[in-house]
């Protein structure tokens, strides 16, 4: 099988990060003698050459599917890269225990599979953290309000009405979600619940009966919280949908822009 070497040598010499480099001893399979080589670990590839400045690469070890083993001391500080039955075992050694430990750890973390799992895990954590942040951002803007004892005041957020009396208040004041695009917000709560401006009482008839204000009870503050929770769920769903659609949009558009040079 042909391994296109020029791609590898270019990768080695380009400016992407080197993960570890240094002298190690490498045992030859045939004669069990250690030879000192300069090793460069980059991504999931371990290159080796005679000296650091050498242009000529002696070889490369692709580190997928191998286990890294610490070995008992044989005068040196050995360890091995084992690929499994029927496949190679590379025997390497460091000059001291600290170097040995560092190389073993670095090689252990070098595989593509390992990085893949790590990225997936962190990606999930990131999404969770982002969602939590957005939720707590919207909640904290309500909790920071502390009402005076004798009157009901709804916190003013955006162009909402401030209620000064009784148990009536405007639904539109309850939940301002600033990060949701207006067209999404327009589909949700404000349309479902008719706005009632508490200051306007119908001239030709009585005020709406208590029963119409289904979520309104005798204690306006408690009821406000209920309302907030009730509509908050809708808002949260909408926010999640929006975040998801933004993510896929961004993934798609990034394909054209990526230049891995």
């Amino acid at each position, binding site marked *: *099988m042909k391994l296109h070497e*020029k791609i590898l*040598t270019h990768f080695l010499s380009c400016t992407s990060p080197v993960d570890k480099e240094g002298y190690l001893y490498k045992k030859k399979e045939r004669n069990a003698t250690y030879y000192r080589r300069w090793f460069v670990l980059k991504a999931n590839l371990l290159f080796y050459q005679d000296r650091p400045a050498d242009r000529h690469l002696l070889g*490369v*070890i*692709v580190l997928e599917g191998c286990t890294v083993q610490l070995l008992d001391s044989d005068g040196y500080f050995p360890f091995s890269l084992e690929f499994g039955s029927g496949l*190679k075992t590379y025997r390497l050694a460091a000059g001291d225990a600290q170097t040995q430990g560092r190389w073993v750890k*670095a090689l252990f*973390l070098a595989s593509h599979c390992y990085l893949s799992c790590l990225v997936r895990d962190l990606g999930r954590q990131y999404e969770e953290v982002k969602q939590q942040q957005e939720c707590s951002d919207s909640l904290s803007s309500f909790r920071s309000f502390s009402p005076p004892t004798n009157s009901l005041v709804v916190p003013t957020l955006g162009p909402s009405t401030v209620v000064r009396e009784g148990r009536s208040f405007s639904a539109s004041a309850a939940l301002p979600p600033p990060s949701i695009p207006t067209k999404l917000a327009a589909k949700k709560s404000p349309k479902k619940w008719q706005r009632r401006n508490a200051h306007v009482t119908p001239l030709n008839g009585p005020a709406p009966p208590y029963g119409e204000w289904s979520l309104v009870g005798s204690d306006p503050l408690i009821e406000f919280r209920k309302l907030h929770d009730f509509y908050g769920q809708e808002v949260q769903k909408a926010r999640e949908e929006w975040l998801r659609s933004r993510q896929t949009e961004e993934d798609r558009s990034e394909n054209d822009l*990526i230049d891995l040079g």
Partner: protein
Amino acid sequence: MRFNEKELVCLSRQPSEMAAELGMRGPKKGDVVKKRLVKLVVNFLFYFRTDEEEPIGALLLEQFRSPGYTQCRVERGGHLQTFSIVFLDEAERKYLFECDSEEQCKDWIDSIIKASYEFMRRNLIFYRTEIHRLTGKDPLEQYGISDEARFQVNSGSQLVVRDTSSL
């Protein structure tokens, strides 16, 4: 240059979600499109003659760019969907692949780009930085790998950093 060929061939036999028969054309002048079984495993693109067990070759998917898929007209007024990979060495070697559909092209480019170790590393650094910014905690601490050179924010040259404001 020596390499662990047997082990790499073994790697090429691992199951992969991205494996298909595509037309493939090499970078040299005079190269023609040939039918190959193309298979993506970790950050390598292996290509086989159909029904052969050992790959003909392996391409390391690092330091390349993909100009995106293109449509080209062929004889008799038909159309082909193709994508290419150009390696960023001095020779700027270009490999061209023919797919059955636009969707297949997009899937391949997407998968190939995301398979690159350097791409994954950049994502990791982004997540690490953001989680730390939002929570004050380093997510790699729990794994005991915070100090590894491999995962450092400032390692190597700064490649394109993702714009966090878009999120």
